[in-house]
């Protein structure tokens, strides 16, 4: 039999989606079995690399970790004799040694039950306005995106965000701090809190927002304006020193193509980077995707280069601030 490809990524429903949309059809087609390993843990990938015991062949990492992988050169140069560039769209090849996998964003959602009319919150400035829009709100416990939201709320235009004006951002954050119900750290927390009525509006991952609205019928609506898009930064890599690079390339060739990307998006709402996939998606559904051009326009792109360089220092500052 063929040597299996080991893939590391997020678990739970994410894993189910990967298996159904990518791995199973791939195995069926190529005869190469896929072993999917979760949970996603970048530090583990790093530990394996340090120990020269890399066991993951292909990984799909988030924007921040993509940038780190590229910086630390943890990937293997892609073999375009196996990967057919023709099946890809240019957006997927933005980063070296990587192929764009999916596009996610962090957005604001609000309760339509609470603000049924047109007088609903529309911007981060509204989110900050506790007087006009009282109610439970939450943000993610990370400086990435949160500081950007604060600056947007303070009136900084979205193309002038970077390099971040940290003092200004923290000053603005100080205003909202007493009104934050919770600083969530897992994707499921805001979902639960919406369901149990604790939150009226919140920052949330677009995938989870769509799951709540479309699958759980929560009466919420996404505000794309001022959303934080990861753009094309969430990528597939083939790991340095992995046991089965050839298989991994074959897998990437399949996974990055349009049809699996569309299938994947349908299941887990993670938008395709491969624009060709939009042809396969229902229009109405496509409009809920962060990489849908109309939506992407309204959002800003997270500058992961900035973040990778400043992550530790800003996180320390953010943690000190948040804990006080």
């Amino acid at each position, binding site marked *: 039999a063929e040597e299996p490809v*080991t893939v590391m990524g*997020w*678990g*739970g*429903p*994410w*894993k189910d989606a990967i298996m159904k949309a990518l791995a199973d059809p791939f195995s069926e087609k190529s005869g190469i079995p896929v*072993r999917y*390993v*979760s*949970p*996603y*843990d970048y*530090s*583990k990938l790093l*530990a394996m690399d*340090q*120990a020269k*015991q890399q*066991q*993951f062949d292909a990984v799909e990492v988030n924007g921040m970790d993509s940038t780190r992988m590229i910086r630390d050169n943890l990937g293997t140069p892609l073999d375009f004799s196996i990967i057919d560039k023709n099946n890809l769209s240019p957006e997927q090849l933005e980063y070296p040694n990587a192929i764009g996998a999916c596009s996610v964003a962090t957005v604001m959602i609000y309760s339509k039950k609470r603000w049924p009319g047109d007088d609903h919150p529309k911007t981060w400035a509204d989110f900050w306005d506790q007087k006009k829009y009282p109610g439970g709100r939450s943000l993610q416990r990370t400086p990435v995106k949160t500081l950007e939201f604060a600056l947007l709320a303070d009136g900084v235009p979205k193309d002038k965000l970077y390099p971040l004006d940290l003092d200004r951002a923290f000053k603005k954050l100080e205003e909202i701090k007493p009104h934050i119900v919770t600083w969530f750290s*897992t*994707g*499921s927390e805001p*979902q*639960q809190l919406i*369901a*149990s009525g604790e939150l009226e509006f919140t920052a949330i991952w677009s995938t*989870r927002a769509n*799951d*709540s609205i479309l*699958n*759980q*019928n*929560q009466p919420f609506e996404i505000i794309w304006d001022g959303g934080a898009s990861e753009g094309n930064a969430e990528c597939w890599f083939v790991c340095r020193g992995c046991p089965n690079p050839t298989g991994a390339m074959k897998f990437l060739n399949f996974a990055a193509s349009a049809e699996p990307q569309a299938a994947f998006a349908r299941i887990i709402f993670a938008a395709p980077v491969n624009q060709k996939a939009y042809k396969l998606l229902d229009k109405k559904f496509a409009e809920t995707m962060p990489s849908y051009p109309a939506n992407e326009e309204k959002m800003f792109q997270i500058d992961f280069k900035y973040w990778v360089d400043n992550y530790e220092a800003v996180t320390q500052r953010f943690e000190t601030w948040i804990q006080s």
Partner: protein
Amino acid sequence: MNARIDVWVLGASVVAVLLYLLFPIVVVIGASFNPTTALQFPPSGFSLKWYQEIAGNPDWINAFIVTLEVGAITTLLSLLFGVPAGFALSRYRVKGKTLVTALLLSALVAPHIVRAVSTYLFYVPLGLNNTILGLAIAHSIGGIPFVVINLGASLRSFDPTLERAAVIHGAHPVRAVLTITFPVVAPGIIVGALFAFMQSAQELLISIFVLGTLQMPIAVKLWEGVRVAVDPTLAAASSLLVLAALGFFLLAALARRGAAPAPNA
């Protein structure tokens, strides 16, 4: 005894504490029947589909099996190392007893993330990563203190005259300890073993690192789900675990019926 205030107060506080302890179980079991993907209590309807999903998903079944395997070996190792240590610490004047104790107890707090990373790196040359045994060894570090402490507490009340009686009637001291001391303090050892198993079953980070590529114990399975999205499968899996524990207790109770009678009639 006739009804008395103190009995009522005690009874009421017992019921209150039990309600507090059991409340999460009620919520989780309730939520596991919710028909939609939301974790919701009280459930908006009744559906067994999350249970069906678990039954039909080999991942969950494997997770249960892995948890059992790791837990069993952990318990065994904890007993193997914990029982002699507990015995030595409670019976002998040992130099540096405080230090040994401190070392044992520190294993309970040692941040798991640090143990996870360091154990992973340490295991690489030993080839213990991705083995059930490797994880069980790592978990035994947290299980040993439980065995030692519970055994120590039991030995404290053990009447040493019993051991003397055994030795004088022909038992080699080691045999006296095995046939008299250990059976008498067995409840303490069993509680320690139970704790050792439980801490293994709930441990997360070391499991993620050491057992990463292939298998996944139940705690990791639950955690990875939660990090992305919560749906009632998690509640259903948790409920099954609790029900399994309950079933285990019932079986144990049935097995004990007719065996040794009550200790204090």
